[in-house]
């Protein structure tokens, strides 16, 4: 099956710093999503990005489908950005999202 790898597994930032999270996947996919899971367990949609680049405020994402990777950029990080960031790829044959193991981000004031 498709493998999804995220890096780094853990990241500690000072408030105001920028960061890049990476997601590699092992096969062609129909869809890719980035999520933020907050400390209460809520999984929040950040981007639906099968290819190309999207921006939403301080966050942006780029997926290069032909090279099987996606990047999530966080600029001017805030303490509320802390949590776990998941990349997930979708296979329409199985209907399921396959999640990476996540990047745990801690932003210190």
């Amino acid at each position, binding site marked *: 099956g498709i493998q999804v790898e995220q890096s780094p597994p853990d990241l500690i930032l000072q408030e105001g710093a920028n960061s890049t999270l990476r997601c590699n996947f092992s096969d062609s996919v129909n869809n890719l999503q980035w999520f933020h899971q907050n400390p209460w367990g809520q999984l929040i949609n950040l981007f639906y990005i099968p290819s190309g680049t999207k921006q939403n405020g301080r966050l942006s994402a780029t997926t290069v489908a032909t090279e099987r990777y996606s990047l999530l950029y966080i600029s001017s990080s805030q303490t509320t950005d802390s949590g776990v960031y998941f990349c997930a790829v979708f296979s*329409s044959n199985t209907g399921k999202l396959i999640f990476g193991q996540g990047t745990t981000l801690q932003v210190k004031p």
Partner: protein
Amino acid sequence: EAGVTQSPTHLIKTRGQQATLRCSPISGHTSVYWYQQALGLGLQFLLWYDEGEERNRGNFPPRFSGRQFPNYSSELNVNALELEDSALYLCASSARVGRNQPQHFGDGTRLSIL
């Protein structure tokens, strides 16, 4: 627009009991998915329902089952509960899957087995 709603928020059971978790999708969504997030094991796909039919299931024993109702809401049933079933259970919904629509998640049900 209301998001995906799940109930109950928390559920405490003992070993051997049965648990029922409920999910209401976003209005207009016909596909419902269930995922389990156990401590240290990441997010694992459980079940996919579309148009009332079970379309796929993950690598879980048969005591995990569910159904989708005509209004597209869904139930997840877990029989003969075991300690390792303690986890956050997340439900997601999407529009018709053939269009590769994104999945939107509810806030989850935290199931604790004593």
